[in-house]
């Protein structure tokens, strides 16, 4: 016995750390029990809803059963042109996001680098940011109609200021020591901006990207629900209008799925590209 334990402790550290993974297996077992429980709970909830709707104890305009929701998908796809509306909503969100990102970061860089511009334009930006965006949507409808550009502009408005202020904050966070290093190597002003200042601001800009990725979809849908001719928000409105609750739930599920995919894409982008160094 004592021999074994002596052998155990005298093993090189590397061998032991290699085995650590195998010893961790009880945790995996625990984990899968956890998963099983979660699946069971989800199944119970779905079954209860199914029963409540099928038995008629909850009216069908309030709630749709899981099978009804599943059955709504082919209808949405083939009769109501779901993919076209999905395409419209995603393009609005994406274009608005891209505009907010490029213009927001550009404004932020300009204001972060030129203190005078910041002092002069800062109050205007803060004032514009303070306007609750939803209150000017009717005005925007007057200016831009209820079509594509109206949505893109609203998505842009929802995102622009966050990019501006996060970029400024990121630039402020630049480490004085890194600037010194660059200057000691005789870096030009442009090189200091591209090699030191912008990379320093990336984590802060990425935080805005993460926030906005979720926000731009919400903004596009919101604008569509208020006034639109097409898009998922428009489909939602129409489904609610004819008390097609199953379709409403199916649309909500679709939008949720898109939101989840977006978040994981952003995570991947952050881990593999922009903040790779933080994850190694």
């Amino acid at each position, binding site marked *: 016995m004592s021999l074994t334990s002596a052998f155990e402790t005298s093993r090189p550290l590397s061998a032991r750390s290699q085995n650590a993974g195998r010893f961790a297996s009880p945790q995996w077992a625990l984990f899968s029990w956890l998963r099983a429980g979660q699946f069971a709970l989800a199944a119970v909830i779905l079954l209860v809803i199914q029963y409540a709707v099928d038995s008629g104890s909850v009216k069908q305009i309030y709630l749709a059963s899981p099978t009804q929701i599943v059955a709504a998908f082919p209808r949405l796809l083939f009769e109501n042109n779901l993919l076209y509306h999905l395409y419209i909503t995603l393009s609005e969100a994406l274009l608005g996001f891209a505009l907010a990102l490029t213009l927001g970061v550009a404004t932020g860089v300009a204001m972060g680098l030129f203190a005078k511009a910041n002092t002069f334009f800062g109050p205007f930006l803060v004032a514009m940011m303070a306007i609750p965006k939803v209150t000017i949507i009717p005005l925007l409808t007057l200016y831009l109609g209820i079509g594509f550009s109206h949505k893109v502009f609203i998505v842009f408005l929802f995102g622009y200021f966050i990019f501006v202020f996060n970029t400024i904050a990121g630039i402020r966070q630049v480490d004085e020591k890194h600037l*010194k290093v660059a200057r000691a190597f*005789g870096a030009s002003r442009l090189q200091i901006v591209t090699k030191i200042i912008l990379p320093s601001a990336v984590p802060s800009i990425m935080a805005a990207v993460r926030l906005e990725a979720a926000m731009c979809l919400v903004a596009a849908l919101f604008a569509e629900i208020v006034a639109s001719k097409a898009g998922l928000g428009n489909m939602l409105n129409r489904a609610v209008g004819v008390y097609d609750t199953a379709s409403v739930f199916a649309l909500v599920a679709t939008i949720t799925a898109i939101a989840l995919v977006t978040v994981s894409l952003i995570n991947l982008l952050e881990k593999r590209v922009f903040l790779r160094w933080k994850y190694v």
Partner: protein
Amino acid sequence: MTLFQISSVDKVYPGSPPVVALQDISLSIEQGEFIVFLGPSGCGKSTLLELLSGLQQPSDGQVSFHGRPIEGPHHSLGVVFQDASLLPWSTIEDNVAFGLELSGIGKAERGNTARHYLDKVGLTGFGEKYPHQLSGGMRQRAGIARALSTEPEVLLMDEPFGAVDHITRIKLQEELTGLWQENRRTIVFVTHDVGEAAFLADRIVLFSPRPGRVHTIFDVDLPRPRRRGDLDLLKLESKIYDTLHAVENQSRAANAPV
């Protein structure tokens, strides 16, 4: 041959009251010499190093390099910073190649040079790592490799080993003297560690604080390689400590309330 000539230099930071960081400094630094600026914090030793590196300009007097006044950062000068100051978003290799990248040298060539200097400082195979994956001592080695990569005539080192533990520090000091003896590149080294100064220097310039002035210059003509704990080295240290205490009493008396 004189490399740096510092002639009656003052450095004053504006404010109310203005802060006199350096007052009437005159000093010449010879080619190939290992000179150490020693002193308590606030004595202006780092400021003087920044004047040499061209990162700052003197308020009065002149600092010249090879007889020409220093007007800004210069490719002949390699600076090693306190706590390495590596760029966290770049790999170690890219960090070491940073100076070369700024001067427009192609990716392949600067990669080769970077790897060469990583080998030299004992970081072979760490090029793909990021700074936060390395220990403090390794980061500082990378900082030295970065300064060496542009093949400067002079290394200016600002408390480079201040942030590493004592054992690592001793090892880094030995490695640095080894590197220095290879090609006798001039080194100006700032520290507040008496033992470090005595172990490394050909000449120690002791500064007194507020305002920063040159107090005493010690010539260290002990043979190399030096052995830590060597009696002559300890004698020198003890002499420096005595002077340091004298400096402290002096400045305390000067700043005492009347």
